Every structure is written in C-alpha cells, then in structure tokens.
C-alpha cells in the first residue's frame, strides 16, 4: 500500500474526533467579543448616542431636510429612527460591520490563536459557524440599539404622533411603529450582506488591515453605484439597494415588490459570501505561517462567486423587469407629485382649519417636463419642473402651483415649491395658533422603479 493511500484509506477507522458543538463555540466567541473594549464601546454608543442625537435634532429650528423624513422630525417621534436609518445605511452600518465582521477572523490572526482554537474546537467548520454567528449576534445587538435608542429619543422629544409617508399620506402612530420596525428589519439584510463580505475579507486577508476595510469599501462602492444612472435590473441586483428600498414601505400602497427583490438579493449575497468564506477557511493550512497565493484565492473565492451572483441576480431581475431604462418616467413623476400634493394639501387644509376636502374633490393633476421641454422627460436630474393643478368644491377656477424637482437615480425626488406664496411659495403658514412649517413648500417622494409601479 502506498503511503498516500494509507492515509486516505484510514478515514473509516480514524481516531475518534468529537468536535465541540456549535452552541458552545458560539458562546465562547460571544464572551470573547464582548470582552473587547472596542465592542463594549460600540454597544454603548449604539444604545445611547442615537437617542440623544434624535432628541437634539428634533428640537432644533433647522431640520435635516435633505434626508428622507428629516423635515418631519419636529412633527412626530417616528421620523427620528427613519432619519437615522437613512444615515446608518450610508455610514454607520458599513462601519459597524467593518469593526465587528471584518475583525472576527483577522483578530485571531493578529493574536496568533488559530491553532489553539482549532485544537480546542476540533472542527474548522464549527469554528467558522460559531464565529460567524457570534459576529452576527453582535451586529444585530448594535442595530437593535440604534433602533431602540433613536425611537426612544424621538418619542420622548416629540411624541407618539402620526407620520407623513413618502407620498404625503398620514400613517397612524401604530402603523408608523410597524413601518419603522419593518424598515430596520429590512435594512438588516444588506447589513448581513456587508458582514458576510467582511467575513470573506477577514478570512482572505488575515491580519492585513485591508481585511478590516473590505465592508466599508464595498459599501462605498455600492453607494457610488446607486448614484449612477444604471438600468433598473442592475440597480436592483446590487445589495446596496436594500438600504434605500425600505422607503417603499411608507407609500400607499406599499411598494413591496422592489423591497422584496432588494432583500432577497442582499440575503443571497450574505449566503454566497459566507459560503465562500467558509470554504476558504476550512481549506486553510494552519501549520503554514507563510501562506501565499492570496491574489489567486481572492479571485477564486472572493471575486468570482460574487461576480457570478451579480450576473445571476441581474439576469433574474431582467426577466421580471425587461427594461434597460432608469425606471423614472414622466408619467410616474407626474403621478407621484400629484399624489403627494393631494395628501399634503389636505394636511395643510387641516392645519389652517379650512373646510375639509377629499382627494376625489381635489382632482389633483401634474404636468411635468425637463429642461423647459428641451430634454427627454425621463431619468434622474434636477431640471424637472411640474405644474400642479387642483380643484376646490364651489370654486370654478382651478388652483395651480409650480414645483422644481430634483429626482435622484434611485427614485427619490424632492419637490421645491415655486409659488404661489399662499400655497407653496413660503416655508411657513399662518395657523390660528401661530406660524407652522408649510407641508406644501417642500416635500419628498419616492418613484417606484419597476414597470409594475403605477404610471
């Protein structure tokens, strides 16, 4: 018998190896993670600072109107956690995943504890599972802190009041609470995708600081991609879109189709990146301190599977949405603006104690174009202009108002009122109880990018 076959053939009667259960590895990893001052500080920060931040901002005269729901922070406590979610999707969550997931494996390389751990656990797969679960748990704890703290801060500072949705309709406090919870839950999907990318980078690059930066770099790349005029299938197939798509929860009816696609794509990225990291980890030679071929492995286990997944996701979304356009059409813009205006006009009516009207009575319509009619009216741009028309019961002449629009590639729009002054030309309205923010002066909207979205 050759020496090689001697080992291969011995598998059946091999020495009894009883690996440590994943549950114990998980607890061991959690103990290690929470013993680090860096993690403790992060947990503390996530559970305290957002509340203070939201409470402080809500009390200020100038609100973060450039962030979705920012302009409503003075009106309801439920706007705070959504503003924080928008901000977190861009910065906080990628950085948190960098610190936690990016360091879960690299930390062992830095401390030189891999061999010790493997001897103790006796199963690289279980070791990987325990570490990945522990990292995920800490991330969920941090995200829960951001949500809980910002909600408490918002409710304490402003109160449990109705929230104005992205299309201007009012959500009762209970619906707002449900929406906030769902929105944060949906944002967990891209966070887990980033965490999995962090695990992959951490396994691949070992103690190199680049491993720590991989999730943050991936997040920046995703954000840049979302700012580009991409075709709809490609935009939705990128995991970063899930950091934006939760906006659709606050429209009526809720735009669940693109939200579900975005969440599914993010979860697929999380699964594929985790599987690649696991495969890479169990193939690692723990006795060879000078492992080479990082670039080859990065290509084979990092770039190739994720590029394959992207191609597959684009193909799948393209089948459902056979469009090469941006998904932003003139009809969708006009519908979004008229819908939001109708909802907000009723809000203004209530503010000013005018006679109540219904949206059916108002019959709001909008006519929009780009670049004074010289530009093809579709796609993102800040040169959109809409003329909104509405009717009041008993009044023959229709009312008109003009808006300048800034439409972002991801479908978010911001309408800036251009008059008349008593409707949308000034940021304050005079109510019987004093001056109040004018809901029609500036408002946000969200255009559904899928063809199924109503035109």
């Amino acid at each position, binding site marked *: 018998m050759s020496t090689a076959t001697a080992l291969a053939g011995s598998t059946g009667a091999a020495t009894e190896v009883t690996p440590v259960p994943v549950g114990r590895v998980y607890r061991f990893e959690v103990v290690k993670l929470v013993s680090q001052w860096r993690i403790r500080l992060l947990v503390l920060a996530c559970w305290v600072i957002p509340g203070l931040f939201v409470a402080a901002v809500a009390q200020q005269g100038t609100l973060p109107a450039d962030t979705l729901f920012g302009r409503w922070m003075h009106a309801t406590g439920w706007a705070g956690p959504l503003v924080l979610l928008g901000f977190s999707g861009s910065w906080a969550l990628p950085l948190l995943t960098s610190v936690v997931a990016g360091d879960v494996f690299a930390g062992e390389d830095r401390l030189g504890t891999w*061999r010790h751990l493997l001897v*103790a656990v*006796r199963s690289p797969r279980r070791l990987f599972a325990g570490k990945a679960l522990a990292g995920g748990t800490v991330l969920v704890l941090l995200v829960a802190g951001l949500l809980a703290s910002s909600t408490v801060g918002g409710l304490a500072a402003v109160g449990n009041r109705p929230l104005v949705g992205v299309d201007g309709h009012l959500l009762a406090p209970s619906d707002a609470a449900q929406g906030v919870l769902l929105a944060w839950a949906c944002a967990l999907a891209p966070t887990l995708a980033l965490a999995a990318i962090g695990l992959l980078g951490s396994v691949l690059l070992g103690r190199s600081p680049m491993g720590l930066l991989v999730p943050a770099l991936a997040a920046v790349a995703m954000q840049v991609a979302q700012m580009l005029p991409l075709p709809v299938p490609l935009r939705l197939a990128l995991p970063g879109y899930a950091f934006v798509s939760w906006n659709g929860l606050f429209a009526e009816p809720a735009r669940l189709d693109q939200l579900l696609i975005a969440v599914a794509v993010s979860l697929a990225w999380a699964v594929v990146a985790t599987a690649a990291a696991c495969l890479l980890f169990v193939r690692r030679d723990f*006795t060879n*301190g000078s492992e080479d071929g990082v670039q080859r492995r990065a290509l084979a286990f990092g770039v190739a599977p994720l590029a394959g997944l992207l191609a597959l996701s684009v193909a799948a979304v393209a089948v459902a949405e056979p469009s090469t356009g941006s998904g932003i059409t003139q009809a969708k813009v006009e519908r979004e603006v008229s819908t939001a205006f109708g909802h907000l006009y009723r809000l203004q009516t209530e503010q000013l104690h005018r006679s109540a009207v219904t949206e059916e009575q108002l019959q709001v319509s909008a006519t929009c174009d780009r670049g004074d009619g010289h530009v093809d009216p579709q796609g993102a741009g800040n040169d959109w202009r809409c003329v909104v028309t509405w009717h009041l019961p008993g009044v023959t002449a229709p009312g008109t108002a003009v808006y300048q629009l800034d439409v972002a590639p991801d479908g978010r729009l911001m309408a800036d009122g251009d008059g008349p002054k008593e409707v949308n030309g000034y940021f304050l309205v005079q109510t019987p109880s004093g001056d109040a923010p004018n809901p029609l002066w500036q408002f946000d909207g969200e255009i559904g990018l899928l063809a199924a979205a109503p035109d």
Partner: protein
Amino acid sequence: MGDAQLAVRARGLTKCFGDVVALDGVGLDLASGRIHGLAGPNGAGKTTLLGLLLGLAVADGGELEVLGRPVGRALAGPRQVAGFVDGPGLYPSLTARKNLAALAALHGRDPRAGRIDEVLAEVGLTDVADDRVRGFSLGMRQRLGLAVALLTEPRLLVLDEPSNGLDPAGKQHVHGALRRLAEDGVTVVLSSHRMDDLEALCSDVTILAAGRVRFSGPLEKLAADSPEVDYRLLTSDPQAALTVAAEVAGVRIVTGAAARRGAGALVVRASAPTVEQLVGTLVHAGVGVREVAPVVPPLEAAFLALTDQQQEGER
C-alpha cells in the same frame, strides 16, 4: 514494545508546503507515559510534526496513529490530545482565570469548578489569576498555555518550546508539572532548542533534520551511540599534555574556533572511553589533570553531529 503501548506511531509520514518538503518519510514510535523531546535545527520539520499530532494539518502521505487509532484525512485533532505550537493562544482582554473558564465552557465543563484553580496552582499562576493576560510576560503566557492544555486532562500533550521565556522558578513549575503528568501516564511530546531542558526532562528524544529522523530513542542510547565529543582538559602542564594527547590513538587535537571555546585549555575530540584512557596516560606521564569536561553537553554534541551542524559551527 507492542503497538498498544504507543501513543504515536508514524510510518513514512510526508508533508510538503509547495516545493518545500517539511517532513520526508518520517517514521516514529513514541511510547505512552513518557516525556519525548523533539530537537532539530530551524526548518527541520518539528512544528509541522507537532501540528500533525494536534490535527492542525493533514499529512500528504504515510500513516499516522495517535493514541492507538489512525488519523483520518479530515482536519482537526483527536480527543484527549492537547497542547500548542508557536506559543499558546490566549486572549489578552481576558484574565488568566477567564481564559481558562471560557475554555472550560467550550469543552463543556463547569467553568466555576475547582479544576481551574488546580491547574493555575500547578503552573504557579495562582497569584495572578485575576490579572488580564495583556500584562503577562512571555514566561507567564507559556505557563498559562500549559494550564490551558492541562484543563482538558489530555492523554497526549504536545508542546512547542514550552520553556521559552521561563525564569528558573517558572521552569521548575513547568518541569514539575510535566513530570507529574508523565507519572500519571500522560504522554508528553515537547520540542525545544534548549538541550539542557531536554536532557533534564526527557526520557526519549527524536532528532529531526531536513524533515527526516536522524535519531529516535532513549537518551542513554543517544549518548552511547554518540560519535566523538569535544572535551576541555585543564592540566598542570598544557604543553606536555598536548604532546601526550597527540600520541594517544583515537584522540584528535582541536584547533581553530572550536578550540577557542576551551578558554585556553586543551581541547580534544574523542569518544568517552578514549578520553578516560587519555586521562590515565596524562597522570602516568606526571601531568596533573585539574578538570575534564565536555565543551558542549553530550546531547548538544550529539545533536550537532547528527544534524551536520558541528562542522558549520567550527567554521
């Protein structure tokens, strides 16, 4: 010795890292309940061999049995094998006790049980049990690493350079603990570059060079098999001693770098019986012999000879 009494049995064990052959057909029998020393120059394959015993790597070829059972191709070590290579793995943000408690919990033991205090006492770290490992010296880390290994009550303990950084008191603790383990039937395999440690602790020694076994067996056999060793002779008349030594068959006068290690005394290379004969001849010739001692300890000399490093050292 029957195979049933072997803690480790290897035949034709081979392990390569790319083009580098770390282990080249290693055959080894390590008896149970003894302390085995593993020596060899840097790159000889010691850490790789220890890694295979701990289940950190899989051999490319050959047969390996640990504690009486064949090791399979899956990564991960068998139960009842503990130890460390390249230093112990410890978490600096935890105290010594918490490091042990976390490990105990990982192994499904009650982290509050008295076993933690026992192993801490065994390695002499009771006083610093509640200090964070971040502030520990290398020697303290080594001792805590041994405590971690002891916690699992292994039948085979594999240690890479366990005496690194130990002060005399620490060394006493570690040596004492290892001797007690061997008395209790635990097999200890340890690598070291410190020949005095191996000589003081081990009953058997394996010398590796370039991935191959150059010697494996009891220390006494190594001494008996040893080739000629350099001896330093301090005499009443060095010139006369030199003349006499030159005429004794089997004695070679050492000059050059190796002679300088004799610090002015006469240095000769000979087997132990020949040196005894030389001393008799000197006395008979009226030359007083004040001291006869090996220039390097016998195990080190055997190591240097077996690993072809003696000649290099003399250059």
